[in-house]
């Protein structure tokens, strides 16, 4: 079956005063209809850039984009800003990290949801308002008839994110891109929002790209995970595979450095060093300077050659050591222990 969305070898560079910032360096991603995939990485890994590139938000900016984004057979990168409009909101909905700044402060929540509906549906103002009320009810806002006339600042953080979700889903898009939607929220509110997204996803069967830095959120919500580092996908597999058999040294490092509630480890195992500087990427593997396996891979390959993304049993890994079978189960660094 043809995937619904496929991103191939996507590169995005931003010109700055200090030079070109390479935000994406050959990103790959595929997504099937109705599937929920988690895009995981730390700051600067390119996870948000990926989601915004899919939405075409870098069109008409100074960003230099190369590669391929195919959505239902259409090359989205080739579309003009105007030709992209029928996709935005209608076929692809998007929610953002901070719902307070993502909503217009001067319009009511209801007006903003109704507007999102009216862009793509020829209906009267009154009908659109009713749609907004219904949608607010569906995302669990109590007393939606009254709340529809509130301004964003009159909502609590959790309710605002619910309203954002209502706005993104009002046209019943086939794909929902959620860009760190719970990062700014408290943990009990995050739990409510994750429940909501997962319920709505089951109800509408839309596909979801969930961008997050939290592996726990991925485990709870997603079927498949894409781990990003330095603007590349370094590992892609089912959630179960990733958690039981993490193969890329970075994925393993990430899991080992994560504090857990369960278990009784007193000491965390951090990844040494810091995330890569996107202004001057190494010519070899981007993770090499923080990777303990780079030393055991022969010919200094990790320092001189970018590894390819190798797919085996639906488990894709971008690592010389893994490719040469030099890293096995026994060399796990503390993951899951």
């Amino acid at each position, binding site marked *: 079956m043809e995937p619904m969305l496929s991103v191939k070898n996507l590169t995005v560079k931003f010109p700055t005063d200090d030079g070109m910032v390479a935000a994406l360096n050959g990103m790959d991603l595929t997504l099937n209809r109705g599937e929920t995939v988690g895009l995981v990485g730390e700051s600067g890994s390119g996870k948000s850039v990926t989601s915004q590139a899919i939405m075409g938000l870098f069109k008409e900016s100074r960003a230099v984009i190369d590669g391929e984004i195919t959505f239902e057979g259409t090359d989205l990168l080739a579309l003009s800003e105007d030709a992209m409009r029928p996709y*935005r909101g209608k076929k692809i*909905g998007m929610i953002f990290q901070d719902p307070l700044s*993502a909503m*217009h*402060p*001067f319009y009511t929540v209801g007006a903003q949801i109704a507007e999102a509906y009216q862009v793509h549906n020829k209906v009267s103002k009154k009908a659109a308002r009713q749609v907004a009320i219904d949608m607010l009810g569906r995302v669990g806002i109590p007393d939606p008839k009254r709340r529809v006339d509130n301004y964003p600042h009159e909502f609590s953080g959790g309710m605002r994110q619910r309203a954002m979700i209502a*706005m*993104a889903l009002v046209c019943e898009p086939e794909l929902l891109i959620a860009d760190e939607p719970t990062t700014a929220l408290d943990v009990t509110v995050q739990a409510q929002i994750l429940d909501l997204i997962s319920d709505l996803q089951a109800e509408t069967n839309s596909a979801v790209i969930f961008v997050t830095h939290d592996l726990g959120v991925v485990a709870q919500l997603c079927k498949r995970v894409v781990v990003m580092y330095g603007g590349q996908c370094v590992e892609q597999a089912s959630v179960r595979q990733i958690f039981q058999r993490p193969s890329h040294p970075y994925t393993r490092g990430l899991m080992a450095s994560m504090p857990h509630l369960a278990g009784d480890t007193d000491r965390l195992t951090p990844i040494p060093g810091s995330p890569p500087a996107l202004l001057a990427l190494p010519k070899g593997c981007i993770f090499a300077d923080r990777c303990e396996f780079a030393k055991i891979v022969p010919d200094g390959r990790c320092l001189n050659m970018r590894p390819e993304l190798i797919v085996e049993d639906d488990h894709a890994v971008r690592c010389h050591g893994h490719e040469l079978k030099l890293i096995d189960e026994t060399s796990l660094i503390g993951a899951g222990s």
Partner: protein
Amino acid sequence: MVSFLFRRFGAMLLLLLVVSFITFTLFHFGPADPASAACGQECTPDRVEQARVALGLDKPFFVQYFAFLSGLVGPRMLGAPGAEQMCAWPCLGKSFQTNENVTDMIANALPYTLSLAIGAVLMWTIVGVGFGLLAAMRKGKLTDRFIVGASSIGVSLPIPVTGLVLLLVFVGTLGWFPFTTNQIVSPFGEAGFGAWVTNYFLAWVALAVLFSAQYVRITRNNMIETFSEDFMRTARAKGLSRRKIVFKHGVRAGITPIITMLGLDLGALLGGAVLTEQIFSVPGLGFTAVKAATSGDLPVTMAITMLAAFFIIFFNVLVDIAYAFIDPRVKVN
């Protein structure tokens, strides 16, 4: 809302009172002697004293001040004892120089200043905000650089220079515009709308060149900041048209600081555009104020100062009220 308005207007009155007191004090203890100025060229000490009594300047400071204030609440009597005349409310006194009723003088001068201000404000708002918006939308491109360049020239041109050059070129050399006349004070007068525009056009341009340049800059910077807001990204992600994104979402959010500036500038301009009125010979408030101040004409100076202060404070309050309508986050309490 009602209590908010009451409080704001109460504060406004208080502020005006303070302004009047300060102006009055400065004048009273200043070096100018209005009595000898009013008495003319050939003046004996006797006649100066007579003039002093006639003008009421012989009375103690506070008596004079309260006499002035009483004219603001009701009619008051003016003139030397025995020759008193009734001055109807609102009484701002009589000119020391011409003995004209100051209220009438202001009523005569105000339409000129209004004509000047309204046209100039319209012109620079349309030009300044329009080009500022255009520059913001084309940020970094040639159009933007051209507009920014032009505005830095405009901002550094003083009004006397622009004004004189305009007069020289368009009235003198080219003869496209007539000399400004003080016969036309209103767009609805006998001369008609066209003549009114022609009469004030160059003065408007002189003011607008300077102010447009400032408005271009503030609009551009504000809109660029607004365009980078998260909610603008949301508007795009909804699939809205460019026009809706820019105007409905962008301008609505980015316009507030411009409204503030507009309110303050309009208020200041209504108090009299001194330089412009001088250069274009428009007998408005600024023109009258300069004449009064240089000849020690206390009642006229007082009145225009108070009026200017009133306009500035009044438009400040207006801006605050406008804010509450534009931004729902602003609570009027």
